[in-house]
Every structure is written in structure tokens, then in C-alpha cells.
């Protein structure tokens, strides 16, 4: 049937052209392309949440068995850790008092307004070219594009698409992720740039920066998009001027996250600020 074959060929060419056009429009950051994506993840979120539930159950069962096997070791480790942490608690309390006192003296008013929203990860950072996850929370839960996302120990990424009930997080390891950071006690500024590998690179460090393996990396808050001081990871290697960082969180195994709602502090420019304490 030549007409049928012709129609099939026409449909094939049309769909290919349509796909290419969509790619080109996504590349050009058409707003509706993002809206379409967000609409699709909103609709699919309940399905993904339902599908991810049994796999989560299976995982927690495996964890439970593992925990049973290591009960004694774990107990001993926790006792030691508890001892150490009690010491640190005392230190932290003293520092907190000092800090509050000094802030009062200086009339510092830059404490960011932070609020947390807890969300479940409903999609794997799967795929050969991207490192993103979907969350089962969106604008109706107060999330917005650009929010910082943390998982138990540290910063993992930023919200790049926020739907009504679902949103997408760009992980720090993604090729497109660029996070302003500070490194080590010298607080050298740099940019943490993902390359889809497990260890993102530290770029644009000042030439004078002394960076060594094990240095802590935290968000710097430069640009005002992210809250400063969120722990990201530590320096994993320094070879031939290439500095790589190891994230604190295993990004392939995130189950729950906390999204940080951050309001950029407004500078206190009232006249009394400059007159000193009355």
C-alpha cells in the first residue's frame, strides 16, 4: 500500500523535525519548554512516588538486616562519638554565647531568614548525561526555583524547576552546576563546578590560595542566591593545579532532603546603624 508507506515516511520525518525543533528551543531557553517539563513532572509525581515506595521498603529492609549485623560495633562507636560530641556541645554553647554577644556589640543584622521544607526523592539521578533528582514537593509546599537543597550532612544542589507538587534538583556533580564556595580556614573563594563525575572541580581559586586535601568546603553565599556556610564537602585531591572535591553526601543514595527557603537579608541602613550604640 504505497499511500500508507508514504504517510508513515511523512510522519517519521515530521516527528524527527519536531524533536529537533524542541531541542533547539530548549537550548534557546524558551520559557514554555520549562513550563512543559514542569507540567509533566507534576502529573508524573504521584506515579513516581507510588513506584518508588516498594523500592524504598526493600532498601529499608536491607538496611535493617545490616544494622542487626553490626549492632555491637555500632554501639561502641556511638558511645565514643557521644563522648566526643558532649565535649563539642560545651564548646558550641560557649561560642554561641560569645557570638551572640559580639553580634549585639556590632549590631550585626545579617542572620538569614531560613526555613526548611522536608521532601522525599522520587527519582534516581539516573541517566548518562545529567545529575538531577525529582522531589515530591513543589510550589504549594513553599519551594521556589533557586532554593538550596541539603541532605542530612550537607548541601547537595539547587532547585532548578519548581512545579506545583514536584520539583527538580540540579546536583553539585552535574555538568551545569556552578556553586560559589569558600575553602579551608583561609576561606579562599572559588567556584565548585560539576562535570558529571563523582568529584566536582574547584575552579577560579585565587593564585595565592593554599588548598590541601581534607580542607572543608562550604557555600560562600556570593551572589546572594544561596545561604552562606552550608557544608558541601572536602578537598579530595590536588593534582597539577586541579582541585577536586568530595561531597559529604553520597549523591547516588539520597532518600530525603531538606530544602532551605532563604530570604536574602536586607542590609540594615538605618542611621542608628552608623551612630554606634546609644
Amino acid at each position, binding site marked *: 500500500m504505497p499511500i500508507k508507506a508514504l504517510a508513515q515516511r511523512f510522519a517519521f520525518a515530521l516527528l524527527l523535525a519536531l524533536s529537533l525543533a524542541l531541542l533547539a528551543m530548549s537550548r534557546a531557553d524558551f520559557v514554555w519548554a520549562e513550563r512543559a517539563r514542569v507540567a509533566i513532572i507534576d502529573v508524573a509525581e504521584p506515579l*513516581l512516588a507510588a513506584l518508588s515506595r516498594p523500592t524504598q521498603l526493600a532498601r529499608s529492609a536491607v538496611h535493617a538486616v545490616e544494622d542487626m549485623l553490626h549492632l555491637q560495633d555500632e554501639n561502641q562507636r556511638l558511645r565514643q562519638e557521644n563522648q566526643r560530641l558532649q565535649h563539642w556541645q560545651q564548646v558550641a554553647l560557649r561560642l554561641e554565647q560569645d557570638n551572640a554577644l559580639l553580634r549585639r556589640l556590632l549590631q550585626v543584622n545579617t542572620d538569614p531568614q531560613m526555613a526548611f521544607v522536608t521532601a522525599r526523592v522520587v527519582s*534516581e539521578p539516573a*541517566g548518562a548525561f545529567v545529575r538531577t533528582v525529582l522531589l515530591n514537593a513543589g510550589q504549594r509546599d513553599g519551594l521556589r526555583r533557586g532554593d538550596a537543597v541539603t541532605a542530612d550532612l550537607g548541601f547537595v544542589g539547587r532547585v532548578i524547576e519548581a512545579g506545583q507538587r514536584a520539583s527538580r534538583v540540579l546536583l553539585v556533580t552535574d555538568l551545569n552546576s556552578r556553586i560559589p564556595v569558600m575553602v579551608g580556614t583561609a576561606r579562599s573563594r572559588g567556584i565548585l563546578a560539576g562535570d558529571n563525575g563523582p568529584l566536582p572541580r574547584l575552579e577560579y581559586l585565587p593564585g595565592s590560595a593554599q588548598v590541601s586535601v581534607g580542607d572543608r568546603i562550604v557555600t560562600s553565599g556570593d551572589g546572594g542566591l544561596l545561604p552562606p556556610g552550608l557544608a558541601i564537602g572536602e578537598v579530595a585531591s590536588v593534582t597539577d593545579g586541579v582541585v577536586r572535591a568530595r561531597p559529604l553526601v553520597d549523591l547516588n543514595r539520597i532518600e530525603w532532603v531538606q530544602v532551605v527557603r532563604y530570604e536574602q537579608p536586607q542590609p540594615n541602613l538605618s542611621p542608628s546603624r552608623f551612630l554606634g550604640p546609644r
Partner: protein
Amino acid sequence: MMVETAKLWQVRLLGLTPALLTLIAVLLAAVPFGLPFFGPVVPSFAVMSVFYWTIFRPELMPGWAAFIMGLIQDALTGVPLGATSIILVLVQGICLSQRKVFVGKSFAIGWWGFVLMAGAAAAVSWAIASLYALHLHDPRPVVVQFVLTVAVYPAVAWFFGRVEIAVLRRVG
């Protein structure tokens, strides 16, 4: 008359099975399995589904179905819209024109065809992703994904075969 309409609808609904299975395949691409050997890449279930149904039930796997499933997978996995749909449309189009080579042949020949098809799909998706990002992506994840996809295909094809016998026998 009534009976005939009801029967027609039953046939139509059952005919959606391949598309629905492809939708499930698309969702599986995004669900967190958390298995140590299963990630960060997962097998391309959608490519398997489009390949299988285009060859054995071409009328139930039209090009636009492959296109829409590709779009959904793009949105769910966070790649640019069109990146997966172009792959699935290509798989559908090429299989449709070559299906006579596979129909009625042994499973090994079908599997061999799938190896070629999945290899081409992996290469094209790598090229598109690299072109899109203007960055040569590390090809290793794609190769791992290709190997996983080819290895899992017999099991998935067996499952589709069971579904075909159980459900689609009643559809034309």
C-alpha cells in the same frame, strides 16, 4: 449493535497495552532503585519496548506514541525536551522499515538486531548530548548503559511475549 460497539472498545483499550508498557518503561528510567549495581545508569527500557512492539505489533506502536513517551522520559530524567523522543522516533522508524527481517525469525536474530539498534541509539544519544552541551561527554556511562540494556533485553522480550499471548491475541 451494542455488543459490537462494546467489543470494538475492548479491542481499542487492549490495543493500548504496548503504549502503557512503554510508559511504565519510561517511569522505570527515573524510579530510585538504590541497588548498588543499578545506577547511576539504568537500562533503556523504553528502547526495548519501542523496538519489540514496532516489530511484532507495528499498528499498536505508532511513531507519535514513541515521540510522546520520549518527551515524558525527557521531562522525568531532566534532559532537554526532544533528546529521548528523537531516539525513540528513530528506533520506531528504522524498525518499521526493517521489521520483515525479524518477523518469524529465531530469537537470536531478533536479539542481534536489537544489539545493532541499541548501539546506534546509544551512539546517537551521546552525540546529541555532547552537541547540546558543546562538551564531549564521558562515553563510559553510555557504554555501560548499552551493555546493561542488551543484557536485560531477553528477559524483557520474554515478558512482552507473555503479555502479547495473554492480552493481545484478542486484538486483530
